[in-house]
């Protein structure tokens, strides 16, 4: 974490604790997950105990407290996506990656995760990887998609 960035984030709020989520995002972007060291450092910075920081970090689905894949594949399994075949998409992904949803591939390339409505139901069933949305995804599209993600 660059001190300048931290200062800039802190300056946005009248109370420093508000910087916790932005700083957790920052830590995760840098290390791939929220490390125990980061939890300690953030606590010191914001006047919180490590337990308080961890309690917040675990509340939110996007923060990882353990290392995971280099990229996370989010598959929506909420209603509109399920109506159009999300479960088949999940099954095909699990089969091709050789892991269950929630797990990371042995080569560390991907973590596969089920997600709730990704607010992109117009292209259901939807997969999101970082900033990119893919959909409507059919099971037969999965091989090409994984290929693209591996190379991209």
């Amino acid at each position, binding site marked *: 974490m660059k001190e300048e960035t931290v200062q800039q984030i802190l300056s946005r709020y009248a109370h420093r604790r*508000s910087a916790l989520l*932005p700083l957790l995002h920052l830590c995760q972007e840098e290390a791939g997950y929220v490390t125990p060291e980061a939890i300690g450092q953030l606590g010191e910075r914001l006047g919180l105990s490590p337990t308080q920081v961890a309690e917040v970090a675990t509340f939110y689905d996007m923060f990882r407290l353990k290392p995971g894949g280099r990229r996370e594949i989010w598959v929506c399994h909420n209603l*509109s996506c399920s109506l159009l075949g999300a479960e088949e998409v999940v099954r095909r992904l699990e089969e091709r990656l050789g892991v269950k949803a929630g797990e990371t591939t042995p080569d560390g390339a991907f973590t596969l995760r089920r*997600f*709730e409505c990704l*607010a992109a139901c117009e292209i259901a069933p939807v997969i999101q990887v970082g900033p990119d949305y893919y959909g409507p995804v059919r099971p037969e599209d999965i091989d090409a998609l994984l290929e693209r993600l591996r190379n991209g």
Partner: protein
Amino acid sequence: MSEKVLTKRFEISGYRGTIEEYLATGGYQAIPRALKEYSPESLIDLVRRSGLRGRGGAGFPTGVKWGFVPKDPTLTKYLVCNADESEPGTFKDRDLITRDPHQLLEGIILASYAIGCRTAYIYLRGEFVAGAVIMEQAIQDAAAHGFLGNNILGSGFNLKVHLHRGAGAYICGEETALLESLEGKRGLPRLKPPFPASAGLYRLPTVVNNVETLCNLPHIVLRGAEWFSSIGSPKSTGNRIFSVSGHVRRPGNYELPMDVPMRELIFQHAGGMRGDRRLKAVIPGGSSVPVLTEQHLDTRMDFESLAKAGSMAGSGGVMVMDDSTCMVRAGEIVARFYHHESCGQCTQCREGTAWLHKTLRRIEAGRGRKVDMDLLMDICDNMKGKTICPLSDAAAMPIESYLKYFGDEFEQHIVERACPFGSGGGS
């Protein structure tokens, strides 16, 4: 054809929502107009007269909400834009943020001026990774052009806008959970009262408004309250963006007068049912609202008409299901969602959502028992009306409605010990 207002610029070919494009198409003209012609007080009155109601779910009149903010100039006030968009079936705010971010910023500036706010936050859903980049850029560009910062357009009005990213928790869309989250805490809803307008962010007066609500403001300032209130019905004025998904030919966002009939929305704008199958069920306002059926197709989509039909306008997320859909499975998915998202503070909600999910999963898997239908009704009954926030109701009411309209289907699962649609659920 009704006129598009909020999504008008989406139709310009190649429009990417940069500040140059926004300015070249009449953007940011409401700011000088408001600063010159309106006092904060009269701007609140304008919005009140327009009849604008919140598009985030509850439909509260925006001008009235603003009027609750204390006028004491020594008090710090906050505006928080609710861009958490996480109600299943809703995807309009994402479009408004990524395709025309300056329209939202202009709305935020106007609302801030009206309530006397000097620092505003956009609480953006964490999963909107692309949206965050676009919004950050838009904030910088607006500041570089003098629409944000000190002494905006020489008026003496100062405003800073900051983007604050959430991190994946549906409950943070609820306004008091959102404020907790913005304070760096877990998103646990607060007991109301006090309402945010008197004690919100850092216990200071705060207005929380949805993205789409705010996007309406520049148009109301430029075209007047009478123009706005002439669209829609007397109590549900203006246009609304309906997010239509599920078994329709053309899923997507459709901006239409609030009182568009459901039939027109689904069969004309969204292209009707895929493969010409029969329509079975419609969730008209996001997964938190009761389901409607074919018999309700002539219902209009405004707040009053949907309430009269036994549902709610909610977030404008319209999920359409054809006759291949298993309603027990649909219920299982909806219940799973609320079970996952309940913050756990209230026993009825924490236990109720878990029981609903478990019972529906059992029925769907062909292991339902005769008593399970009564059990479901009991659970729902116990979940309603006694909790800190409305999530518990939002989980119970849809399930009750599925039982009401599709009770036979639930029974069939139990009697035949299998899902007649062959899905079986399970996840």
